[in-house]
């Protein structure tokens, strides 16, 4: 660990923390204050550090006049569906990889993970014609499917790591008690794996909620558009750059994720650090 006993070391350490903190939080801070500034203040040559006349006009406009609620609903549908399906599939796949020994187990797992090694933009080039062939372009199922493809490998691996630590004796005990393999999984393993399951759900939810590229490319009709491309095309396009609206809408768009994270934080942290000690 770091030796922070000397005063100098402490100063250097905290200075480094402050720099990292600044880069992390300043954009967030700017997002919040910009969303509260009126347009006249927002476009000054010398920006103000605080809104002199805080107003909620951007928020009101974003929520009442634009299509933000529709985009949010679309994102909610797509993200919930893809996160649920990813979690469901990763549960069974992860358990199978962790607790069963069969031919091809390792290669299949490596093959799955190798999908993560390609840039997502590159994979889009091959996904697009596939979706087109399957008539899934500009459809929600098509978009959900592409999100599953990308979130599933890491999700499976996360659950695999957790399930590997579930003691074999627990499974043996349930087997000796007369439970079938599926029953053991449903009544013993899943109930004790809530933290990693929540983690995987949140991970895949964020993945699709924050996506811009896939949604922008695979969805063309405005009524199916998700929040990422929705924001971009509404507020920052060729004809206008409504920064105040963009900031307010971004805040609204990130609210569900922040709320979910705060609500499920306890599980999420447990899941991320599961097995770190003992």
């Amino acid at each position, binding site marked *: 660990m770091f030796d922070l006993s000397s005063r100098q070391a402490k100063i250097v350490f905290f200075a480094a923390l402050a720099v990292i903190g600044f880069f992390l939080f300043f954009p967030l801070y700017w997002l919040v204050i910009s969303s509260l500034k009126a347009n006249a203040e927002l476009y000054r040559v010398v920006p103000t550090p605080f809104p002199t006349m805080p107003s909620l006009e951007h928020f009101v406009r974003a929520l009442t006049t634009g299509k933000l609620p529709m985009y949010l609903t679309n994102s909610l549908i797509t993200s919930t569906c893809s996160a649920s399906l990813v979690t469901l599939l990763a549960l069974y796949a992860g358990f199978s990889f962790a607790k069963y020994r069969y031919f091809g187990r390792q290669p299949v797992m490596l093959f799955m993970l190798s999908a993560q090694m390609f840039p997502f933009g590159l994979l889009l080039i091959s996904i697009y014609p596939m979706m087109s062939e399957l008539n899934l372009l500009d459809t929600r199922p098509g978009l959900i499917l592409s999100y599953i493809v990308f979130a599933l490998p890491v999700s499976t691996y996360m659950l695999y790591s957790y399930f590997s630590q579930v*003691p074999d*004796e*627990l499974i*043996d*005990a*349930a*087997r*000796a*008690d*007369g*439970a079938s393999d599926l*029953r053991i999984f449903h009544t*013993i393993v899943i*109930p*004790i794996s809530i933290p990693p399951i929540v983690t995987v759900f949140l991970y895949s939810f964020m993945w699709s909620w924050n996506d811009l590229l896939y949604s922008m490319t695979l969805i063309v009709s405005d009524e199916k558009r998700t929040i990422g491309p929705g924001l971009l095309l509404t507020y920052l396009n060729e004809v206008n750059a409504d920064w105040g609206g963009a900031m307010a809408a971004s805040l609204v768009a990130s609210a569900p994720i922040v709320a979910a994270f705060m609500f499920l934080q306890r599980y999420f942290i447990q899941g991320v650090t599961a097995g770190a000690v003992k």
Partner: protein
Amino acid sequence: MAKLELKDIRKSFGSAEVLKGIDLTVEDGEFVAFVGPSGCGKSTLLRLICGLDEITSGKMAIDGELVNDVPPAKRGIAMVFQSYALYPHMTVAENMGYALRLAGTPKQEIDARVSQAARKLRIDTYLDRKPRQLSGGQRQRVAIGRAIVREPRIFLFDEPLSNLDASLRVEMRIEIARMKDTLGTTMVYVTHDQIEAMTLADKIVVLNSGRVEQIGSPLDLYNKPVNRFVAGFIGSPRMNFLKLGARKGEGGFAVPGGEVRLPRDLSSSPVEIGIRPEHVELVGRGAPDSLAGIVTMTEHLGSDTYAYVALEGSEEMVVVRLSGDRAVKRGEPIGVHVDPAMIHVFSADGLSLASARAVALEAA
């Protein structure tokens, strides 16, 4: 209650054969302990009996019925695991009733059986708690309770006390002994603690490298080990072994520190002798039938004192068990008296040769 029969049981994991033909009969109501060093296959054998692993070859029967392909729950067997393996998200009552619930037992009957077992094990006040709210000893009781409620034909225990501290272990050992008397069910118990095996078992099976070395009552194994392995494994501190040197007259052999006299009618030529720490005595230098040595270390346990004696002219160390109040000075030159009637004699292949001691015991 049930009789368990194993015939030429073999188990391989890939190309490694872990059990190399086990033959064993456990009579109805008998308590059998498997002992042996780590990796000898004792836990594997228990898992095969439970049905958690498949038998590679051989036959296993319970009450005459072949059970090789019968799933664990249908064998009428309950197992208590080393780590307790309690379901952490279920209460004590739910843990204990899980198997019955799976078997479709009516709820009222489950409740009745769970509370009856809980009373027996004095855990009836914890029925609503989760395992994490219990102490190690209480968890172990729940694990045993979970086995009892199933009213199995055979109980299997896989090192059930090894996670407990010393005083709890003694307490639970007594509990298991009481359970054995009151239930009268056939029990198979795996342990590496020979005190548990010696005190609880009617019959001990000593395993080594996937083979049975000897099966017998605790005292049989102690008094009449069939080979060097069993002789060294049973008894604590372990038996002292001395390599035999040149013959010295009629039945005499040179050993470090002096010579010993062995019976003349041995079936093959002896190469090594064994003598338990409790069958040697400290005497003055030069006393008859004694080996010369120097006390290098003593251990005072209160009830006993163990003296470690380095025999003259060799690296060999002999452990001598003395009464607790006996004072021995380190560095003291002494004699070690070996009672010829208590000597175990081993041949080159490690087999025990009919010794004077065995003959004496037969006569008794």
